[in-house]
C-alpha cells in the first residue's frame, strides 16, 4: 500500500532528477575541420641514414599575445616527433646538445592559438540558468572554441629549409554542471594533437629529405625502420560523461 502511494511521485521525481542531472552534466567535443587532408604517410628508411634532431625553439602566441610555451607542450611536441622514428636522436635546446659538426635537423615551431571562450554568451546564459533556479541547466549549453595554427620550419644540416603549416579547430559544448577545467584541457589537447599530426604527416612525406643519404633503401638493406605519424587513441569524439566520471588530468 505504502509502495503504491509513493511509487508514482517517487519514480517520477527520481526519473526527472536522473534525466536532469545526467543531461545537465554532459559535455562533448567537436573538431571543426577535417583533421588530416592527406592520408597518413608511412615510409621505410635505412636506420643508419637517420640523423639527430634538435628542437631549437617553440614560439607560442594566444590570441596574438606571446606566452611562454608550457613544459607539457614541449614534451608533447618532442614526443610526437620521436614517435615518428624518423630521426636517430632527439635533443631539445637548453639540454644536452648533439655533437658539433654532426649532421642534424634543426626544428623551429610556431604555434598560434586562438581561444574564444564566448564569455558574454556564458555570462548571459548563466544568468538565465540561475534565474530559472537551475531548471534550464539541462537545456542551455555553453560553448568554448579553441583553434591552433602551427608553422614548422625544419632546417637540414646543409642549410636547406622546408616549411610546413597546419590548422585545426574544435569546440567543446557543455551544460552548467558539466563545466570542468578538464574538458577545456581535453579540447586543447585534441586540437594540438590533430595539428601536430597533420604537420608530421607532411614531414613523413618528405622523409628522404631528412636522411643523411637521400636514397630509399633498395633490395636487402642492412637495417630499416618504418616511420609514420602515431595517432593517439584519444581522438574519439564526442565525449559525454558526468562530472564525477571525468578522465584523470
Amino acid at each position, binding site marked *: 500500500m505504502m509502495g503504491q502511494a509513493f511509487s508514482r511521485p517517487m519514480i517520477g521525481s527520481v526519473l526527472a532528477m536522473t534525466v536532469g542531472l545526467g543531461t545537465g552534466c554532459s559535455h562533448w567535443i567537436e573538431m571543426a575541420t577535417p583533421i588530416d587532408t592527406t592520408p597518413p604517410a608511412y615510409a621505410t628508411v635505412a636506420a643508419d641514414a637517420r640523423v639527430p634532431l634538435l628542437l631549437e625553439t617553440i614560439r607560442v602566441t594566444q590570441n596574438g599575445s606571446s606566452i611562454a610555451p608550457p613544459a607539457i607542450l614541449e614534451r608533447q611536441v618532442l614526443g610526437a616527433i620521436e614517435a615518428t622514428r624518423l630521426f636517430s636522436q632527439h635533443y631539445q635546446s637548453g639540454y644536452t646538445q648533439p655533437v658539433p659538426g654532426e649532421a642534424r635537423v634543426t626544428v623551429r615551431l610556431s604555434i598560434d592559438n586562438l581561444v574564444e*571562450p564566448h564569455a558574454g554568451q*556564458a*555570462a548571459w546564459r548563466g*544568468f538565465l540558468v540561475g534565474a530559472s533556479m*537551475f531548471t534550464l541547466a539541462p537545456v542551455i549549453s555553453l560553448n568554448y572554441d579553441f583553434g591552433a595554427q602551427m608553422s614548422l620550419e625544419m632546417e637540414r644540416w646543409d642549410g636547406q629549409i622546408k616549411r610546413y603549416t597546419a590548422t585545426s579547430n574544435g569546440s567543446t559544448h557543455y551544460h552548467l*554542471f558539466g563545466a*570542468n577545467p*578538464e574538458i577545456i584541457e581535453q579540447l586543447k589537447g585534441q586540437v594540438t594533437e590533430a595539428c601536430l599530426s597533420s604537420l608530421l604527416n607532411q614531414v613523413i612525406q618528405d622523409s628522404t629529405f631528412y636522411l643523411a643519404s637521400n636514397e630509399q633503401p633498395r633490395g636487402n638493406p642492412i637495417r630499416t625502420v618504418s616511420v609514420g605519424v602515431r595517432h593517439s587513441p584519444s581522438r574519439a569524439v564526442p565525449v559525454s560523461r558526468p562530472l564525477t566520471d571525468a578522465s584523470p588530468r
Partner: protein
Amino acid sequence: MGSLLVYILLIMLMAALPSPAHAADPKPQITVGTQEVGLSAGYLLPHRLTQDHTTKQQGVAFMPSWMITLTDPIGNSWYRGQVSLGAEMVYIQFQEPFVTHGVGFAPKIKYTFVALDRIRPYAEFAGGPFWTDLAGKIPEESSQFNFVLMAGLGVSYFLTDQTALNIGYRFNHISNAGTQYPNLGLNASLPYGGFSFFF
C-alpha cells in the same frame, strides 16, 4: 582593534603587490569550470527606509554556498575579471524583535576582478525564495513565504591557490512580491566574513 584591522589589511595588500619573490609564484588559476564552495557568516542590521517601517530585525546569518566559474578572465584592464554562477543557502536567526528563524535558497551570480592576483574584489547578486516565521509577527510582512534579494561587494584574499578568505557587505531585502498584504518588506545591511575552497 581598529589599528589591528588596518595592520592586517596592510599586510594583505603588501603580499598581493608584485615583487620579485611573488612574481615567481603561480597566481591562483581560476579557469572555466572551477568550482568554489564556501561558508560565510555575518550579522544582519536593520534599515527602516520609511516611517512605516518600525521593526528593528537583526540577527546572525550563515550562508553556505557553491559556485562554478563560467568564463576565463575577460578584459585587459583594471576591470579584468570572470563570471561565476552558483547558489547559496541563507539561514538567519533573528534575535530581535523576536527570536525567530529564516531560511532561503538563492541562485547567485558573481563578477570577480582578477587584476590584483591574490586580492580579488567582487560584486555579487543573489535572489530566491525565503521562509521565515518572523513574518506575521511584525507589521511589515504578513506571509511566511517570501523572497530574499541580496546585492553586495566583497573582497577575497587567496591564502593559497585554492583557499580564500572573504569579507564583504550585502544589502538584504526580504518581501513576498505582493502575494499577500501588508508587504512593506524588510531591509538590512549584512556585513559578513567567510572562506572559500576552489577545486
